[in-house]
């Protein structure tokens, strides 16, 4: 049994070699199909289907109480779904929990720390708990300490550490066995901006070798860290796309333009790709264009050739907050109509 688990760990470690990483289709490390879950009579998760590839950071976004934590608890085996299937590295989590969980690192909302232990002792315990052989523990420990920047505090008792270091210890326990799937539940809550930046950098780094799924209600986190976003509301996934595309969601593509020596309005209008021009002031224009056809290149060369004296060109930006409110708001509206 133990040899079996070790075999899987070795498989996973080998799969992490650069050779496999360069494969055209990255391996799917986590797949959840049609998860449902209710507490009592209230159904809190409806038909959630997720897939995660190696080297991908997925952000699970949603309001408080949208079902993010419940979903993550199910993905890590802390909570059994009412129906649905979960596979981790191709192993069924519900049928072979022990083997599947060996590939899993989990940081719950509150970091699971034995506060009376020292950082190193706690991490050694966590490593052994995840089935790392005692001979390999020192190596795993030093790597985890180094990655999470805990070297300087490794002999300190966890309860004496600051919140930021405690959170890092929490992340360290989730990655010490180098799992293929890392699940982080609101990893940056309650940290100061510098700590948030450090932890985001760490998550980004983890995303290079493993799959990371993190829940958050901070939109900037998604922008900075995640490759892909799933938005959750009332226990359903209502929107899923790459992080970059989400930022363009519902956004009018365009830019504001300041020209000191502007041409006639129709001249701008006739540039290829420009769909609409609006004059804001004597020198300022707002130009809209289709998302897939950006005329700014042509515009720049024209401006240089014809002496329009371009001063400023700023892309129109809607904040991520707007997008989020827009997406969740639309969903509410749809719900209202159908009811």
């Amino acid at each position: 049994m133990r040899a079996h688990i070790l075999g899987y760990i070795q498989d996973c470690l080998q799969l992490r070699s650069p050779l496999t990483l360069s494969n055209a289709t990255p391996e799917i490390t986590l797949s959840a199909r049609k998860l449902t879950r209710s507490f009592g009579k209230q159904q809190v998760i409806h038909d959630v289907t997720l897939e995660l590839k190696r080297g991908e950071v997925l952000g699970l976004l949603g309001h408080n109480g949208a079902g993010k934590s419940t979903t993550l608890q199910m993905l890590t085996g802390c909570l059994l779904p009412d129906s649905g299937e979960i596979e981790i590295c191709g192993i069924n989590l519900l049928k072979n929990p022990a083997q599947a969980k060996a590939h899993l690192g989990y940081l719950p909302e509150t970091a699971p720390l034995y506060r009376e232990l020292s950082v190193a002792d706690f991490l050694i315990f966590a490593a052994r708990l995840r089935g790392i052989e005692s001979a390999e523990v020192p190596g795993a420990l030093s790597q985890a300490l180094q990655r999470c920047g805990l070297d300087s505090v490794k002999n300190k008792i966890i309860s004496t550490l600051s919140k930021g270091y405690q959170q890092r210890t929490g992340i360290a326990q989730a990655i010490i066995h180098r799992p293929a799937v890392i699940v982080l539940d609101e990893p940056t809550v309650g940290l100061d901006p510098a700590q948030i930046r450090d932890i985001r950098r760490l998550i980004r780094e983890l995303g290079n070798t493993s799959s990371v799924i993190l829940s958050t209600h901070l939109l900037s986190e998604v922008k900075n860290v995640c490759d892909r976003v799933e938005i959750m509301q009332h226990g359903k996934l209502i929107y899923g796309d790459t992080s970059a595309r989400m930022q363009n969601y519902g956004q009018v593509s365009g830019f504001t333009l300041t020209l000191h020596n502007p041409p006639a309005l129709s001249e701008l209008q006739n540039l290829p790709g420009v769909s609409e021009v609006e004059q804001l002031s004597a020198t300022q224009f707002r130009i809209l264009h289709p998302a897939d056809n950006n005329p700014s290149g042509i515009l720049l060369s024209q401006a240089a050739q014809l002496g329009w004296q371009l001063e400023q060109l700023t892309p129109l930006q809607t904040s991520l907050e707007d997008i989020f409110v827009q997406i969740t708001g639309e969903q509410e509206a749809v719900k209202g109509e159908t009811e």
Partner: protein
Amino acid sequence: MILLIARRELRSLFAMPSTWFILAILQFIFAWFFLARLEAFLEIQPQLAQLANPPGVTVTIAAPLFFTAGFLLMMLVPMFTMRLIAEERRNQTLALLLSSPLSERHIVLGKFFGLMSFLLALTVMLPAIIYTLALGTTLDHGLILSNCIGLILLTASYVALGLYVSALTSQPVIAAIGALAVLIGLWLADMAATAADSPWHQLSPLYHFQNFNAGLLDSSDAAFFVLFTAFFLLLTMKRLHNNRVYG
């Protein structure tokens, strides 16, 4: 894995000052009680010597000491068991165990054996105190051995029950009070039943300890302890599993 969790449990226990405090107080009570019994024995020894078949020093000193220990542990064990699962749940560390590649069996047995080995170390002090008497007199080794076995079984039953109550809640204090209430309830059921053959006696762990205390190794008493312990350990595993089912 069981060993790993047991070791972690021990480590956390010894990291807390209250553990050392309780250990010290308990040793003090044992020693004080032992000396009080010794003094009483020395006082009545001349009268005892006139009896045809006088009770020995082991019966008059060691047996009551063990019984007191059994009674004190009834109060003390809930203080130790309360943390086992309730605190893990409160501090959210249970998620670490639940998301690790191990089953409920590992968690429950690890915690059980971890606390048992601590309490074992605590009760080893009893025979150590008693064997100081061997310097001046001869002791009844059989009686001491049966008391030791009985006390270990008794402690195991307390721990299993406390562990289960701890698995029911996320508040250690409630777990302590709950376990204490059940243990005292069982003891009172035993005390309140006046008829010698009343079935209420059979429920109480302390009642089944009496035979061991008198030097009688009764397999039915031993079976009671084993079943009692196993029953509550299984219930705890079931409860932990329900944790995943009901959240």
